[in-house]
């Protein structure tokens, strides 16, 4: 394994991958810092540009955009109290309070150091856990994989949706759309209605940009009359307020370690995501803090807890994707699509079929953290200026990038129609409480389910009881039931909490 890691570093320490990482970090921080543009939007827009480069360069660039984009979200959260993602909500509370007190530099520094520490820890766990875990998952045959995929659908659908039926319905709709076109098993044309253009199914990139990215543009357009907020780093006359000292960092280091651990664990579970990680880590840090009353009012420790947990999810969310072919959240689903486009099928075999590439990507993950630290630290002012650009400069460019990205995938104008149709559908799904990310996960995983189900049917023949002969089948059934019930309990609790609050 260590030979592979060294070989990975050798591959990544070349001009192309390093330039890709630098570009990814700059794009990620800039896009992440712009209110209304999330990390996922940045990745989806950049994705088509990576089609034509080596997978090591393309994938590491996308991962750099992801990591830097998650960090970039904290800049707008701290400076103008506009969290780019739900996970940055807690950072905004404490960070913006510090900004108002003239300590924006301290908040930005803490956010950066905590983000990088959390990401590095999660990446180390990913590197050390993924390959050994893939050896175990290699033992799974088609029957076990069918139950594993059903478990993934159930967990993601029930945990990620607004309600369990809405989450599972989103997943089923994604599955149904995945079955349009020629069946990979029988060669039959399904749901094509005589249109040969539909034989290849829906092109992934325009659909992805339409479902996940463009509805965010709609949100910005709806809020176009809200005045523009200029970002500015506030400075205190006391230099100690404008940075984090080593002593301060050391005092919160245990919080960072604990929160990174929480983020890593939660990120490795499918369906929970970075918001859950940030809220749990923040709550735990507050519970064990010596100054719990400062939380929410400008606590440096609070920023450290939320940001390290939030960013630790980046690395660990890759564990289920790379070992079991299960993307844990929307970004992992998007990255899984990117891996597939680059000819790398995520799953246990990736460690044997593409050893050099996968370890180069791991090495790129670690190096990205160092570049993120250096580039963000030296370019705060530049990124703040870029993120302060008015929306009427940014979103026309986003529109053109979305158009070009959709066209680039197949060099076909029909893909633009797919983009428009799925944009409307993605926005409609959000309005009625369906989850577009779960839709995408259902879309991506269905071909794997169908392939494994077909193989499993060939194995069992008419002895259907053989489906339940493996202990793995029962384990996954039990886990699915457990997750559905725990999700129901969680949702009931969260529904009754506001009512209790009202009664009080």
């Amino acid at each position, binding site marked *: 394994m260590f030979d592979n890691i060294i070989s990975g570093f050798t591959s990544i320490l070349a001009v192309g991958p390093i330039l890709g990482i630098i570009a990814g970090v700059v794009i990620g921080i800039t896009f992440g810092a712009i209110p209304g543009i999330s990390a996922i939007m940045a990745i989806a827009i950049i994705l088509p540009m990576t089609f034509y480069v080596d997978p090591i360069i393309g994938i590491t660039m996308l991962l750099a955009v992801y990591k830097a984009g998650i960090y970039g979200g904290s800049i707008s959260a701290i400076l103008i109290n506009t969290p780019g993602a739900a996970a940055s909500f807690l950072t905004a509370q404490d960070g913006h309070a510090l900004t108002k007190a003239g300590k924006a530099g301290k908040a930005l520094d803490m956010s950066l150091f905590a983000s990088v520490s959390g990401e590095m820890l999660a990446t180390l766990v990913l590197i050390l856990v993924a390959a050994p875990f893939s050896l175990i998952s290699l033992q799974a045959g088609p029957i076990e994989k069918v139950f594993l995929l059903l478990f993934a659908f159930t967990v993601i659908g029930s945990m990620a949706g607004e309600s369990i039926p809405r989450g599972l319905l989103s997943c089923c709709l994604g*599955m*149904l759309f995945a*079955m349009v076109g020629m*069946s990979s098993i029988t060669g039959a044309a399904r749901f094509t209605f005589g249109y040969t253009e539909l034989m290849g199914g829906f092109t992934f990139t325009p659909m992805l940009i339409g479902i996940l990215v463009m509805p965010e543009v709609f949100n910005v357009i709806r*809020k176009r009359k809200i005045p523009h907020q200029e970002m500015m780093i506030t400075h205190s006359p006391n230099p100690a307020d404008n940075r984090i000292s080593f002593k301060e960092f050391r005092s919160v280091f245990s919080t960072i370690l604990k929160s990174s651990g929480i983020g890593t664990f939660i990120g490795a579970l499918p369906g929970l995501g970075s918001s859950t990680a940030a809220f749990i880590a923040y709550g735990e840090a507050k519970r064990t803090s010596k100054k719990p009353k400062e939380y929410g009012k400008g606590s440096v420790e609070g920023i450290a807890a939320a940001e390290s947990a939030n960013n630790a999810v980046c690395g660990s969310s890759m564990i289920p994707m790379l070992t079991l072919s299960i993307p844990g959240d929307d970004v992992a689903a998007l990255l899984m699509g990117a891996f597939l486009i680059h000819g790398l099928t995520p799953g246990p075999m990736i460690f044997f079929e593409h050893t050099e590439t996968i370890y180069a990507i791991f090495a790129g993950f670690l190096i990205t953290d160092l570049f993120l630290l250096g580039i963000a630290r030296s370019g705060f002012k530049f990124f703040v200026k870029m993120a302060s650009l008015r929306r009427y400069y940014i979103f*026309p460019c986003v529109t*053109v990038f979305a158009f070009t990205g959709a066209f680039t995938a197949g060099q076909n104008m029909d893909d633009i129609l797919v983009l428009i149709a799925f944009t409307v559908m993605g926005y409609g799904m959000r309005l009625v409480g369906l989850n577009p990310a779960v839709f995408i996960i259902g879309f991506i995983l269905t071909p794997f389910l169908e392939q494994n*189900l077909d193989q499993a049917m060939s194995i069992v023949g008419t002895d259907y009881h053989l489906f339940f002969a493996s202990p793995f089948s029962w384990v996954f059934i039990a886990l699915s039931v457990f997750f559905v019930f725990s999700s129901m309990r969680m949702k009931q609790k969260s529904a009754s909490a506001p009512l209790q609050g009202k009664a009080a």
Partner: protein
Amino acid sequence: MDRRKIDVVLSTFLIIVSVIIFTNDGLVEGGAESDLGSMFLPRLVAGLIIIFAATISIQSFRKLAKGTQPEGQEIITTNGFSGVFIYIGIFIAYWFTVPHVGFLVATPFIMIAVALLLGGRNWVPIIATSVITPVLIYYGSKEFLRVYLPTWTL
């Protein structure tokens, strides 16, 4: 807007589509024999859609029948929707015009239209951005990605 009414209509639509998938053999053409069959998984998914759509519909219908006021996520605010429709119109116009006038000609007009929609009135920088961006994308795609964006065909 009351989302519960949309739930009922949308669920009914999804149930009808799922019933068609269940009953219509004409939705699949050709293909080899397999243990699973081409329509097994689509029909399984259609069955699940019926269950989940019916659950959502029944929950919403009960609340509507009780006459309770919508609350929280059940209310869809429609503020700013006109801008969304205009944006969709701009995008459709973009899709329609690019094959005829080409990417380099259509894009600046589309960018200016989106900037106007978002309240932009600083003409010089908006026009400059709208001209420079497509040129950079066009030649960047051509030289680095080997992607040839549509050109003038009129």
